[in-house]
């Protein structure tokens, strides 16, 4: 079952309806159904955690926390909240971002800085790494279709855990501009994907 994951998330991925059924069953305490949910989603959760927190051990910790949280909260999943994958990955993203911010706060204290240290100089390297890592052509194409400013906004928020205020500060732009840029970037991705799929 772990091997299926290794072969790629897509190969092991049940249809959304089936995954929803499994999640509902898991919510009623069905351990077998939960195992199937794990096998269908753990690679995405783990990959996202790894991408955000960088540290492999910490990424595994986050993955474990997220999957146990999915088990705990499974009975609260409802289809009108979105697809099961989106629901699970929303939990995962938040948990990974919380972890990265806690680490940042910790290192800030060590450095006796009142404000978060924000380094925007590694952008080019970051973009290269991201593009190498991305397996899904749809995502690659979508991100390539963003303006550089939009891409930068998504990189710093979605992948590095910046808040909108930190984004505004790092890029020296007004807060309202920062918020709008994040939203524009996501909407543009959505629109491109709707056209191409």
């Amino acid at each position, binding site marked *: 079952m772990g091997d299926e994951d290794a072969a790629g998330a897509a190969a092991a991925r049940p249809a959304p309806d089936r995954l929803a059924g499994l999640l509902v069953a898991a919510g009623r305490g069905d351990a077998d159904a939960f195992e199937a949910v794990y096998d269908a989603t753990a690679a995405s959760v783990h990959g996202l955690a790894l991408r955000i927190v960088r540290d492999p051990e910490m990424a595994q910790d986050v993955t474990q926390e997220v999957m146990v*949280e999915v088990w705990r909260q499974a009975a609260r999943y409802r289809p009108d909240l979105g697809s099961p994958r989106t629901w699970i990955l929303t939990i995962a993203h938040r948990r990974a971002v919380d972890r990265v911010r806690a680490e940042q706060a910790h290192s800030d204290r060590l450095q006796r800085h009142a404000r978060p240290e924000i380094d925007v100089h590694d952008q080019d390297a970051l973009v290269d790494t991201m593009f190498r890592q991305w397996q899904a052509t749809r995502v690659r194409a979508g991100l390539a279709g963003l303006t550089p400013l939009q891409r930068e906004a998504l990189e710093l928020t979605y992948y590095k855990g910046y808040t909108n205020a930190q984004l505004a500060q790092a890029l020296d732009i007004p807060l309202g501009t920062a918020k709008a840029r994040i939203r524009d970037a*996501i909407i543009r991705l959505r629109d491109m994907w709707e056209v191409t799929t």
Partner: protein
Amino acid sequence: MNDNVHGLLGAYAVDAVTDAERAAFDAHLPGCEDCAAELAGLRDVAAALADAEAVAPPAALRARVLEEVSRTAQLPPDDAEVAPADDLAAAREARHARSGHRWPRFVLAAASVAVLAGVGAFAGVVLTERNAELAMEQDVMMVASAPDAHSMDLDLGTSHLVVSDRMASVVAMGEDCPKPHDGMEYQLWVVMEDGSKHAGPTFMPESDGSFMTMLDDQSMDGVTGFVVTEEPMGGSDEPTGDMVAVVEL
């Protein structure tokens, strides 16, 4: 500067919000069909980004998760009574035993249960067993989710003021708030058309710089803005310290 809570939608979808902003948006969401509908689409996009990162975890992790799951109790379906651990951070915002706070007079019962159930159904509830926090959080949610609530930036770290005429209340909350001088605390003032200032609650930021305070039973008729000053402990009847933040309606 007017800054409606709707503006946080994109940032919220990718968790680019502080805990206080998240609490405000969580409270806003159940009452705003537009935001709820658009958020679902934005979250799908965010999930697609995550899917593209898939990396299989070690097989040993699977065993660890299944072992932990086997001894982990599940939450019942939504009853809005139990806080998912994920949302404790947001509830932490409410941890402020403020001297001189008058609890709101408006009755929370039925309305707040409905609001909270909606929030819980969406993203997990911002509640804890700690009753004081719960009460403050409920109050804040009631204000922030009022149909006429609007949010304005407050220049105290990363902070917002949320004002609702209908709830006759104003909430101030935020993070990274600097400490006032020794022996001093912050106080919120209501500025009237004639320039007079009515005393509001005093508040102190937590050690992590977060704070939350609320002024209820405050008609917005004739109110032109709000200011925050530093005052001696216990607050003042008239502002005596420098204005540290100013918000104009």
